[in-house]
């Protein structure tokens, strides 16, 4: 088996025993990136020299008999929403083009301290807003299974690079499905842990009550390995949980007998692609054969998930993204006169607002943000600002918060009678690039099965459970109560011992 085809668990073991040098391991993945990323566009930055230096240092320490970290020599790709001191952090936005964070995200620091090697930063929807990666200011990622199709989003680069063997593991973030949906569309495994399980310090904020970082890999076992390192309390993130971090890898092999899995009838309603429905039904049968029992449960407010999410997330985003003012970092528009001359058409850049700007400073803010943000980010900032503005706050934002509680209560009730809920990740397999770009609302509906997890603050995992007749991966989602990561990983791992969907790899042009 080639180096790049080996699992993260195998790679870490091979480097530890000396069967494989960290240098050979890192070189193999860097070589794969150089060979195929021209087709996929998964990476916004690759840290070739630094990664090889780090690998050489790990090999040196091993040769000297000194201790190595738990992920020594493991190449990891990191979504460009996490701060890294040695590579730019752009969130795939012109607003942050070339931005160099002065500190590492907590997750990045933990990976480095465990001797993982960060090979690059992955492409994404701008500021993590989108479900197709087409909102990147640096071009869309292409799905390795069909280069004319989306990898999903927003962590599309992280999903695609794992699917194409450019990294054994990637870090993503999930605000409404941004780990699970691209994992499903790219045929890999992605875990959105419980809100607060992993520190968000150094993750560029989108919607702070929903954002969560998680691992993406080719198997649940590989996700468990990485989660052990990156989970846990961080005094630098007041929302990170203090609960002890279980040994996720050692809990993987517990039997599934007696596991109660919930099936939600409305998951199988209108809009669900028949091939996806069939793949998911077969997964239920596999779990039953493994000793689990299936029970019908209801999530009565699930249909309100998308409208609730598309109020709360834009409201929080409009507040979080107010920090991009062109004053302290990020893009700043050239002074007024020069800008208009350069544009050649002053009228085009006139504010549509009657009365103009309040001051040169406000004008600088408005022009910098207009130039730095792409259309979807502007749309969500506008929607959030509108929903929070005087006269609308109660009807929209406060209303959505009340419905959010109803959605959370639905899950709490369901988890009194079942241990996990299973269903599709996305209503369809990967769609064509450009197919939904003209209709923002149609794009929002791709999150219909995933937003509930974030609104309730619970955990979810997605992994492949079949392929369409045309060869596109079909994803299964499991959702579990708060801090059920050991169970989510165990169930996914057991499924992956019984099936081979997660082993399949796309054939990319050489």
């Amino acid at each position, binding site marked *: 088996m080639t180096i790049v085809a080996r699992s993260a668990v195998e790679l870490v073991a091979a480097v530890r025993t000396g069967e494989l040098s960290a240098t050979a391991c890192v070189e193999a993945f860097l070589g794969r990136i150089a060979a195929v990323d021209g087709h996929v566009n998964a990476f916004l930055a690759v840290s070739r020299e630094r990664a090889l230096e780090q690998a050489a240092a790990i090999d040196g320490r091993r040769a000297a008999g000194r201790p190595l970290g738990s992920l020594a020599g493991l190449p990891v790709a990191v979504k460009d929403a996490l701060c890294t001191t040695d590579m730019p952090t752009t969130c795939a936005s012109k607003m942050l083009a070339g931005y160099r964070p002065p500190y590492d995200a907590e997750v990045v620091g933990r990976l480095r301290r465990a001797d993982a090697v960060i090979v690059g930063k992955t492409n994404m929807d701008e500021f993590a807003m989108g479900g197709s990666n087409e909102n990147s200011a640096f071009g869309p990622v292409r799905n390795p299974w069909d280069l004319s199709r989306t990898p999903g989003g927003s962590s599309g680069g992280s999903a695609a690079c794992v699917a194409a063997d450019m990294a054994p593991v990637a870090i993503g973030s999930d605000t409404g499905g941004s780990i699970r949906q691209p994992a499903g569309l790219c045929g890999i495994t992605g875990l959105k842990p419980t809100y607060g399980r992993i520190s968000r310090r150094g993750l560029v904020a989108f919607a702070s009550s929903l954002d969560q970082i998680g691992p993406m890999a080719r198997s649940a076992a590989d996700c468990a390995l990485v989660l052990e390192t990156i989970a846990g309390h961080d005094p630098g993130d007041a929302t990170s949980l203090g609960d002890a971090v279980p040994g996720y890898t050692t809990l993987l092999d517990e039997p599934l007998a007696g596991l109660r899995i919930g099936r939600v009838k409305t998951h199988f309603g209108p809009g669900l692609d028949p091939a996806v429905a069939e793949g998911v039904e077969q997964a239920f049968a596999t779990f039953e054969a493994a000793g689990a029992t299936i029970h019908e449960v209801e999530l009565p407010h699930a249909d309100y998930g998308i409208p609730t999410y598309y109020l709360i997330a834009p409201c929080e985003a409009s507040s979080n993204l107010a920090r991009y003012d062109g004053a302290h970092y990020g893009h700043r528009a050239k002074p*007024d006169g020069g800008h208009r001359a350069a544009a050649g058409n002053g009228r085009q850049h006139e*504010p*549509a607002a009657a009365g103009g700007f309040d*001051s*040169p400073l406000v004008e600088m803010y408005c022009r910098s943000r207009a130039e730095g943000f792409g259309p979807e980010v502007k749309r969500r900032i506008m929607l959030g600002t*509108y929903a929070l503005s005087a006269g609308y706050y109660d009807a929209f934002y406060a209303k959505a918060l*009340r419905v959010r509680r109803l959605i959370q209560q639905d899950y709490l009730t369901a988890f009194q009678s079942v241990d996990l809920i299973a269903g599709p990740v996305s209503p369809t397999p990967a769609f064509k690039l450009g197919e939904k770009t003209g209709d923002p*609302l149609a794009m929002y509906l791709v999150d219909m099965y995933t937003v509930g997890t974030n609104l309730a603050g619970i955990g979810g995992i997605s992994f492949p459970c079949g392929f369409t007749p045309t060869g596109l991966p079909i994803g299964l989602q499991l959702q579990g109560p708060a801090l059920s990561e050991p169970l989510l990983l165990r169930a996914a791992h057991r499924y992956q011992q019984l099936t081979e969907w997660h082993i399949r790899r796309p054939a990319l042009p050489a």
Partner: protein
Amino acid sequence: MSLSLQDVSKVGLLARLALTEAEVERMTGELSKIVEFVSQLSALDTATVEPLAHPLETRNVFREDEPQPSLTPEQALSNSPNHDGACFLVPAVLGESGAA
């Protein structure tokens, strides 16, 4: 529920986004459609439901009020579009627009 061009222009200024006329026009249609869609929440009776702003509710986190390491001035200024070595430089805070 639909938004007017004036609504969108006003929100653009509140959001500190200089929108072109074409953007205002396009966004008026798009936002009207989205607002109409999210308005379906009004069908639910939530009179007795408490708002849920955050999955981890009412949890204060304190630490001792002691100095902690922080960024140096050089680090803080390192990504600034314009600075004089000690301060961020920006256009005039007061005065007429366009006087930059």
